[in-house]
């Protein structure tokens, strides 16, 4: 494994007399939040994760992790993926520390940053993140700034399809998760309670939804859809394999090429 060009450091400080007495629960949650944020940024930038984060060093007096990013085995984004992830992550964090949403972080990364800040002021004094010249303290001031941020979203009328799962009716606006075969891992879909029976009947089926798709700035996929209409995708998925050569023609490729040529 080649030496990475860059590493970053992540340290935790507990509230109370001894900053080193971080609870196992906080340590686990904070590491999970940083991991989720890095993976989300990686996916936002590259379509799918390209970087494997390796623990290069551990300090115990004050819980500190030093992490380095290496390309995953199937990475396709070329050199510098870890640096791009860290530059975006720290850029977004620095904006949030000033109470500003500069749009660099997608919805999943923002959710992870909010989780990172959750224990701060309760059981944790701060989480410090340092990369090259950038240093961000997720402390009580950061939490206060984060609470004031006006998060940017754009709404676009779109349709998406995927598997309907995980219906949640224990909220003001009921939701389900839409799992597309490609693209975002899932999209949270908000629907009208009057459609609940229709949604229940479609659980674990492939559906087609139309509505207002909410995007973070620069996101390639929406993180939420306010559903107007929902329909189950019809058709026999096993039919396709039987249709090879079922309707022969000699000029189909030429027709398509000609149609595309007309677009020039």
């Amino acid at each position: 494994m080649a030496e990475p060009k860059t590493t970053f450091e992540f340290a935790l400080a507990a509230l109370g007399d001894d900053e080193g007495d971080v609870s196992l629960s906080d340590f686990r949650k904070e590491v999970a939040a940083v991991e989720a944020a890095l993976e989300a940024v990686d996916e936002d930038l590259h379509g799918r994760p390209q970087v494997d984060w390796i623990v290069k060093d551990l300090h115990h007096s004050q819980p500190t992790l030093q992490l380095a990013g290496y390309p995953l085995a199937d990475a396709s984004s070329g050199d510098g993926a870890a640096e791009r992830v860290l530059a975006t992550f720290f850029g977004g964090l620095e904006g949030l520390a000033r109470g500003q949403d500069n749009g660099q972080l997608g919805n999943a990364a923002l959710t992870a940053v909010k989780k990172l800040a959750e224990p701060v002021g309760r059981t944790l004094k701060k989480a410090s993140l340092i990369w090259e010249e950038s240093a961000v303290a997720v402390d009580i001031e950061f939490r206060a700034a984060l609470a004031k941020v006006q998060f940017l979203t754009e709404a676009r009328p779109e349709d998406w399809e995927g598997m309907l799962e995980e219906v949640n009716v224990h909220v003001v606006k009921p939701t389900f998760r839409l799992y597309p075969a490609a693209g975002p891992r899932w999209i949270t879909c908000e629907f009208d309670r009057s459609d609940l029976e229709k949604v229940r009947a479609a659980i674990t089926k492939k559906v087609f939804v139309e509505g207002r798709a909410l995007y973070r700035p620069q996101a390639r996929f929406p993180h939420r859809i306010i559903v107007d209409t929902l329909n189950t995708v019809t058709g026999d998925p096993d039919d396709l394999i039987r249709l090879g050569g079922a309707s022969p023609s000699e000029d189909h490729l030429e027709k398509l090429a000609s149609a595309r040529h007309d677009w020039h």
Partner: protein
Amino acid sequence: MTGTSRERVYLDTNVILDWVARRSDSKGSTGVGGLIGAICSNGLDAVVSDIARLEVMECKADPTMWRAWTSLRARRNVQVAGCTRAVMDRAAEIRNHYQAVKDADPSAKRAPSTPDAIHVATALIFDCQTMYSFDEGRKAKDLSPLDMSPLVMGKYPLKIIRPDQGDFAAFNL
């Protein structure tokens, strides 16, 4: 956060058309037959653009073609991808890049057609590793998706090959 992802491929419209229209290549683990077989056995995930619906029905408007399209779309491992803003922005970037190449070098091929640019852009935005396409029937002076492989615009990795250049034995589960 480690491990490898499932192989995800992009199907150009001409591959879908060819599956239904070409009797000679409907069996085996290579070519279009092998590719469709790998998708139908859930060995591969596939992405197709929403504009493929328009294109398949424009070029082969019969009930069999429509059955093939609805069957493809009904599969859980197939994503029909819409022409979203991200796709259109990338398609414009592709067209502009290759037009600039043509402007600088009049002997270069013409920029890809808008549908070709949309197909390649969709494959990139949905992070497909391989795009399968044909270039039969194209004029030699026009840039086809196959000409853009393996680095679209010299910076986006995407292997674009003909189905007969693929070997799908490992994916036909």
